[in-house]
């Protein structure tokens, strides 16, 4: 009799452990190490008051905190073009944010959206003479935290309430898995609403993954391009979503290198920044402790180099992560 109860309990535990969990919490990484610093690049904030940096298709894109909002540079940091006037007129911008960069033989196409205006634009920069042609691609009719045009005609969007959804070609909106839970329209549609959970996101270069990293909490979420949630991970412990800012940590960037995902994590607990390496299902692989406070991350997937920008140091630090290529 006792034996029967024992096996029933074992079966219940087995079923429980087999059930798909909505998230898992990472308490430690299988490997720890120090990243190899390749070089430091000092920048002059009076020349470039940097907000964000991106490496894409062999070019650097600087996003500045004031006009001109965008600078396109070659791989040796020689300026090719700058654009983005501040204002409310056509082809002027209030809060432009980089969305995507595509390069062809003649031009670098920089896709960006204006958060306040809720519009997506393309700046086509002539590679030979640096001429810039800006065109408006879509007006979403409301302010947008994130917009990304996909190859199949859809958009991934996040409006002021920070819930990610696909905007289909026929205009229908479909939440990505998990983002449509417990929507309180009465609260979230208010023009004054500021979500406690705030995030940024990126699409992998092969267009197969969509990663969301929280800039307010220790949360990383991975989707496939059908919106299915592949995984959700918390660092150290489950976050308190009622707080505007986590007392544990938050992410400052993500980049895709080879078959791994590299995230820049700012730990409040450890008072330092980490580069965290995950596989394509968000299983932890390795963590590198950085001797700097990192604010922005971008990666060069061709060479296996990641660059971390530190506002305090007014420097960009390039680290060798080619072991993951």
């Amino acid at each position, binding site marked *: 009799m006792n034996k029967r109860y024992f096996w029933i309990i074992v079966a219940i535990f087995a079923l429980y452990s087999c059930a798909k969990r909505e998230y898992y919490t990472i308490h430690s990484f299988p490997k720890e190490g120090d990243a190899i610093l390749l070089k430091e690049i000092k920048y002059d904030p009076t020349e470039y008051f940097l907000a964000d940096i991106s490496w894409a298709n062999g070019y650097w894109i600087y996003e500045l905190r004031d006009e001109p909002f965008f600078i396109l540079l070659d791989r040796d940091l020689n300026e090719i073009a700058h654009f983005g006037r501040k204002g409310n007129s056509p082809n002027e911008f209030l809060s432009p944010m980089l969305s995507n960069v595509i390069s062809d033989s003649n031009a670098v196409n920089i896709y960006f959206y204006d958060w306040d205006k809720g519009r997506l634009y393309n700046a086509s920069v002539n590679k030979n003479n640096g001429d810039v042609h800006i065109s408006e691609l879509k007006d979403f009719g409301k302010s947008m935290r994130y917009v990304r045009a996909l190859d199949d005609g859809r958009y991934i969007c996040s409006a002021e309430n920070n819930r990610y959804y696909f905007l289909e070609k026929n205009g229908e909106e479909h939440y990505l898995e998990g983002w449509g839970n417990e929507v309180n329209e009465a609260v979230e549609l208010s023009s004054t609403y*500021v979500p406690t959970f*705030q995030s940024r996101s990126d699409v992998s270069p092969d267009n197969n993954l969509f990663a969301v990293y929280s800039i307010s909490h220790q949360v990383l979420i991975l989707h496939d391009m059908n919106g299915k949630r592949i995984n959700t991970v918390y660092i150290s412990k489950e976050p308190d979503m009622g707080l505007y800012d986590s007392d544990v940590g938050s992410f400052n960037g993500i980049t895709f290198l080879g078959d791994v995902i590299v995230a820049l994590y700012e730990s409040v607990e450890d008072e330092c920044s980490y580069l965290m390496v995950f596989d394509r299902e968000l299983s932890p692989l390795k963590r590198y402790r950085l001797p700097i406070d990192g604010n922005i991350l971008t990666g060069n997937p061709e060479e296996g180099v990641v660059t971390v920008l530190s506002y305090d140091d007014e420097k960009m630090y390039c680290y060798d992560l080619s072991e993951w290529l």
Partner: protein
Amino acid sequence: MKNLIIFSSISFLLCTGGIAIKAHITSDDFLNANAEALLESRSLPDITVNCFMETEFKMGHSFYYCFDCRRYINAAGIGKMMTCQLNFNQE
């Protein structure tokens, strides 16, 4: 017969004049009521929002700054959270 025609004409003129004056008064009333409604709608109630006294630059973040109770983009509030009154009438 002549008197009947004159009486009818005067009555017609008085009636059409009265209708016109009444319509004018009604129209004015209608406009006034609309104007009052518009004025009332401008007096939206104050809304309380969570705000912070200190801030740091952070891409993709937004928050309300207690000093002017306005929302800022690409910045995060730090330190103690407070509340402020968002007064639409002042904007």
